[in-house]
């Protein structure tokens, strides 16, 4: 006679594994920190600035828009560079304190995340053998594409 057992050893439950959400947040936070570090380092050199321009151009290509886009973004990057001139690798909180002007702070967030995202995209693109930014075109073509990643 097998009487019902209600207790499952904790190691057999999902709750014993690291919660996915927390892991994902940590991963993103790390990515942002890394990206900030990269921006901070690279913007101090001419090569870095060229890199940032390349990013801006890449964005322009992705978005198939006028050179003004690149310009606009370029300005944004330049301002970010200014804000980061004196920084080492700041934490998120430090970063918020770092930029005195609200404007700069705002712009910075966008750039940081964009670069973090681009970093991820280029990492996955290099895994798949695609150049960074050569990934899905649907996103900027007509809407309603709702394209599933499924074939």
């Amino acid at each position, binding site marked *: 006679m097998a009487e019902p057992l209600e207790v499952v050893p904790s190691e057999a439950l*999902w709750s014993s594994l690291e919660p996915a959400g927390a892991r994902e947040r940590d991963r993103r936070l790390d990515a942002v920190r890394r990206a900030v570090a990269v921006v901070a380092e690279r913007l101090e050199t001419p090569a870095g600035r060229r890199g940032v321009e390349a990013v801006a151009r890449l964005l322009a290509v992705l978005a198939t828009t006028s050179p003004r886009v690149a310009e606009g973004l370029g300005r944004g990057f330049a301002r970010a560079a200014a804000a980061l001139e004196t920084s080492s690798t700041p934490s998120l909180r430090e970063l918020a304190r770092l930029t005195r002007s609200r404007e700069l702070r705002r712009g910075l967030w966008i750039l940081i995340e964009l670069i973090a995202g681009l970093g991820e995209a280029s990492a996955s693109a290099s895994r798949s053998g695609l150049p960074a930014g050569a990934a899905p075109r649907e996103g900027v073509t007509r809407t309603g594409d709702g394209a599933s990643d499924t074939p």
Partner: protein
Amino acid sequence: MDQSVSRREDDAAELVEFEVDGELHRAARGQLLVEILGATVPHVCYHPQLGSIGTCDTCLVEVDGAYARACEVTVEAHLTVRTRGVDLRLERRRAGAALLSNHELYCTVCDNSNGDCELHQAAWDLELDEEAAQFTPKPYEVDDSHPFYRYDPSQCILCGRCVQACQEVQVNETLTIDWSLPRPRVLWDGGRPAGESSCVSCGHCVSVCPCNALMEKSMLGRAGTLSWLGDRALRPLIELTKATEPVIGVKPVFALSDAESQLRRSYVRRTKTVCTYCGVGCSFDVWTRGREVLRVHPEHGPTNGISTCVKGKFGWGFVNAPDRLVRPLVRRDGRFCATSWSDALETIAERLRAIIAESGPDAVGVIASSKGTNEEAYLAQKLARAVIGTNNVDNCSRYCQSPATMGLWRTVGYGGDAGSVEDLARADLVILVGSNTAESHPVIAARIKAAHKQGRLRLVVADLRRHEMADRADLFLRPRPGTDLVWLSAVTRLLIEEGRVDEAFVRERVSGFEAYRASLEPFDLSTAERLSGVAAADLRRLAEMIASSPRVAIAWAMGVTQHEGGSDTSTAISNLLLVTGNYGRPGTGAYPLRGHNNVQGASDFGAMPSYLPGYEAVSDSSVRAKWSSLWGVTVPERAGLDNHQMIDAVHAGALRALIVVGEELGIVDANALHVQDALRRLDLLVVSDLFLSRTATFADVVLPAAASLEKEGTFTNTERRIQRLYQAMPPPGEARPDWEWLVALAQALGAPWRYTHPSEVMAEAASAAAIVAGVSYERLEGYASLQWPVAPDGHDTPLLYTQRFAFDDGKARLWPLEWHEPSEQPDEEFDLHLNNGRLLEHFHEGNLTYRTAGIEAQTPQPFVEVSPELAAERGLRDGQLVRLVSRRGAVRVRVLVTDRVRGRELYMPMNGRANHEAVNVLTSSATDRATHTPAFKELAVRLEALGDPVGVAVPRRNWRFGRRTPQRGVAIEGKRRRRDYRDPTRSGGRYGG
């Protein structure tokens, strides 16, 4: 539903020529111009599955010299259409600006900017900028009261899509726009918080909203690269975007957000899947970020299009529930120990070998899952037959659908729906028997309700309860429990007597008419009235409605099948359709509404004791020879046991081991305590499941299973439609798809199984089972689907019996019937009839649905519906705790006083997970005479009021307490009457005013 599509089909033959910008075009007469023009003109409020709404004016064109909305023009011969010109561009920009005056663009940080925001695209196409659009917020708070979505009035462009979807597609009639307000907005029940309204959480409105005004809460702060930063960071970003825009123009800002939305695609994955809940078989893209389910996005599903119900749209909380099993468990020394897969499988194999050696292979049974995939059902039955050596294999269709299948086998040959859901919506008359369709098969109900609201069909409902479909019906019959066969036969007899049969159809396509007619002798109208309680006048009216409807379809569910005469009543339905010639044409036929997502497929793929895959009879030696040769074994000839017989065999000591693939038979089988007692007695019980189900608590080995989102395979829905599901995320921990461990177990038992992917299993099944001969994964790619029978060349059969019925002579068979009184009747001791069934928001016992917090909050427990008459007689109050006692057991539930039930009839939903609240503790072991499906619905109980304090049976915020606000569409006249509205169609055109 898709009005343009159906129009196109109806008029397919008639092509007309017309001119667009000087070029000659050809299209079907009646097709909407906006469909033909496609991307040439912007269109925000138009959606092909919603039809014309006419709120946004962005689609303005000139037709024969006057301005018109392209979404309101149907194509006729010789139209002259102009889409270009500064004037039109100006008007469209004006319309677009009006939209943006109601919507703040902050796309880069918006969770809806995922490359498919339709408003974003329209703003881009119309080249709208900050200057053109003067946004001012509306004076209303964000409505955050709904568990699954939020409404931000200030982002709402008043396109009315949500209202159109709620009023005309889902037909729940919750949403309206109050055009008379100074700043119009969407209202729930005329002005209630969304979370306290009649909203059934189907999600249609959220799915079709072209912007972020209505958003799934699961998307908020999760979809964007930036939106996760939270409000404090978002507001500055919004301000920055707006500040930069005048300097660099709107396009760069859009470009930036487009680029950002592309980045999202690198970590937000969209995977096509098929709903894991009911037999409607909705398919959709599920958006995931890691293991988080962000959104379910329905659009391309062949059965459902944009439709879902609460379970498919929002009910995915179970996937990441903390009590998901992630390692195998083995019972040792009176407790469960976590162990490795190899240890678990070796333990099972060793014990199975010992039992088979001692008692033979028929001492083992396998219960396949009708939640699992077709491939898993196939492997489960193959494990039983080819590895263990027994035909003791079944699935949970035994608890619900076998009688419907039997009724169809007897009369028309195939055990499946005669056509598609589309056919139900195309019928002139739909009769629902014993089906609470709006709650049990919500998307099918939506199709029927929509056709009914649009005046395209008449609806008859026969049910004990006055549920939503009954409320909407043109004729509602309320027969006594267990008497459906009587009134169905009486109506058939009347039609024959009055010469209203389809004589040509009966002569040419049906056999056995005379014997059948003679068998109807006992079913005269007055006898039918006496036995069933349905007035003779109503039966006459029904006969008249059937005779006067060119296309009749009948759908039925558990209210028919879960009786001792379930197969016979199903047969009576099919008989009625046959004598009236209602098979083989679009809009006609028999539709048993299958319960689980894959209850059809589990049977199709052979998880039945008497049938190999494709319903090939085990008793047929040539069939056995074919499968034996394919599998390289001898398929056993001995008849197998069904679920019900397996439980009896355990009690008799003949069955010693049971392998249960994800079925909760300990709670969902009738007479649950008797079943649990059997589980206790087994020498070996193996259960695979996502959680420690009630059944699993008795197990010797518990295997952690994968959810549908975590594996590949196919499901077959109620329309015989086979669809692929793709893996959206890996299973957690060591959980595994059932097909993987079935293969590993077969190998541990010495079988040379080598499957590495479910497609190989399908290929094997297709190589031998005729009904799926042409099925392959390639042919099922993406949203493609096939309705069996599928010929080797891939041709499928959406509509059955167009030429012949599935018997050797091609003729259908009328099947004479007798009626028997249900054996369990209320008496002095057990004086009330207890009906039971599903609830919209819970699936069966609720093992999956209780793990979605929003569902649990709205519907936290089962209850018992008591009629106002009975409540008054017994002095019962809403929320009072009562004890229901049957001849088998007792449960404690709270009273919900409602006129959905009448007199001495009670209703208790089946969402009880523990013995003290599970209706099957009360139900009996009586079964359908032909199939052994439990007669769940034949149940007499007594009710004892308990003294405990009155509590809440169902929270007041539950949709059942809402008040619907029916109207046609968005009631556009309201908008067009407004003083501040300038109607562009009145303002010009070359010849316009």
